[in-house]
């Protein structure tokens, strides 16, 4: 098995102690940093698909993402200023009035693993703060809004509509327990994802369309 193949396998298996060494060995063998990063992104795509299909659960996804981030730490000094590796910036947050962050954190982790630079606004984020974050950051391709409560669905709608009114070109995706594809379409979101794995797929699809 080539070193890159090993990196892929160990990221998928969540071996965060082994991945940095393997990434270094792959570099030493002459693999380009971008190529190694892509291999890890591909692994996380497999992890996301397995999570979406119910083959794996949250702990497996968490340790895989941690393994990838350990590998990325090795690559980062070599890729400074190399914007070509990024799919753009994604702003993420849980909407106003809602303090749930576990699902949002999982989505953030998976979208980051797909190749985005993440700006996490946390929980209880007013619509205007999402807009401000789009203004304040470069190359924003996507805003991801989470809402876990039926009572905060109006805030989700307000967030989507405020962002789209200010930045029609920025894609907005939504998710959370009460959110359905129909609701997402009704409030004017560009995309909906039922889980963290699908969110990464949808993010990539929208950013590269």
């Amino acid at each position: 098995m080539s070193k890159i193949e090993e990196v892929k396998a160990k990221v998928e298996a969540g071996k965060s102690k082994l991945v940095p060494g393997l990434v270094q060995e792959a570099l030493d063998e002459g693999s380009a940093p971008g190529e190694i990063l892509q291999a890890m992104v591909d692994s996380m795509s497999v992890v996301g698909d397995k999570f979406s299909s119910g083959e794996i659960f949250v702990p497996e996804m968490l340790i895989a993402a941690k393994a990838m981030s350990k590998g990325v730490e090795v690559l980062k000094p070599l890729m400074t200023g190399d914007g070509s590796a990024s799919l753009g910036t994604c702003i993420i947050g849980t909407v106003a009035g809602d303090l749930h962050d576990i699902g949002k954190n999982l989505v953030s982790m998976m979208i980051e693993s797909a190749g985005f630079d993440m700006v996490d606004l946390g929980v209880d984020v007013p619509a205007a703060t999402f807009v401000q974050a789009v203004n304040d950051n470069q190359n924003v391709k996507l805003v991801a809004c989470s809402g876990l409560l039926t009572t905060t669905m109006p805030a989700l709608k307000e967030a989507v509509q405020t962002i789209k009114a200010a930045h029609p070109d920025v894609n907005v995706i939504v998710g959370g327990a009460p959110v359905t594809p129909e609701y997402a379409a009704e409030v004017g979101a560009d995309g909906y994802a039922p889980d963290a794995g699908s969110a990464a797929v949808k993010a990539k699809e929208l950013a590269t369309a």
Partner: protein
Amino acid sequence: MLTKRQNLMEVIKGGNPDRFVNQYEFMDLIMEAPMDLPLAPAPGTRVKNKWGITFDWPADQIGSFPMHDDEHKALKDITNWKESVTAPSVFYTDEEWAAAEAHAKAVDRNDKFVTAFCAPGIFEMTHHLMSMEDALMALYEEPEAMKELIDYVVEYELAYAKEVIKHIHPDALFHHDDWGSQRSSFISPEMFDEFILPAYKKVYGYWKANGVELIIHHSDSYAANLVPAMIEMGIDIWQGVMTTNNVPELIKQYGGKISFMGDIDSGRVDFPGWTRELIYADAKKACEECGKLYFIPNLSQGLNISSFPGVYEATSEVIDELSKEMF
């Protein structure tokens, strides 16, 4: 007409109930029992409980949350849990037990089950201490330390159970531990069998060996893949079962070994704009699809309350109406 308790037993034993069991009617919850305050008590409050976990209930929210920022996280490194985690005492004075004892004595046990209440659960305690992400990753990265921590929480629960049993002699236990999201269990059945099942076999086994006839477990989530483990650990009724579990199918598969209480998702009917018609539609669907045995129609909420005033009571009225229509 059967008493509430008799009717419940007919439902879970596959006998001849004369109506639907109406939500929590069969449980007389002894909430006066002294316990370590697990959560912030009301909107606008913040408490640090005796485990060192800080809970915050912002004024405009419908529940409290454990805080896991650097300042508040109670357990920052699982490998140091013995230095960071100290269980509170389970001993309370006779005076502190008096109200609970009086309540338990006043219950007609032919009509209702004197029911002890325990929350949070063992799995919940791990992520309240550490955060969900840390707790779930530790199951892989530091499994021995996690098993030690879980054993420690089990010992606390057993010690507390002994006190509750001594003072109120409960007939039933209502125990919380959320094991999943709306769509999936948090951990795989294999991991659940390794870490959580042995813990609950000890805890529920102890309650049952000491006079408790009925174990009702709350998890308002998907957890259909954990039902075999629920049966093995001694759960009689899974409360909070959401529609995402396909409850009619679970009843077909496991009815007689366990009963299911829920199938009316609070998230769909318990909101500021609730209506009796919406509740009726969901409750009717649940009752028609799940049938009269091994099923108790109920909001998925983990107590005999609702988040918005009137929803619990309206649901009870609707279930009475459905009993008249269907029995």
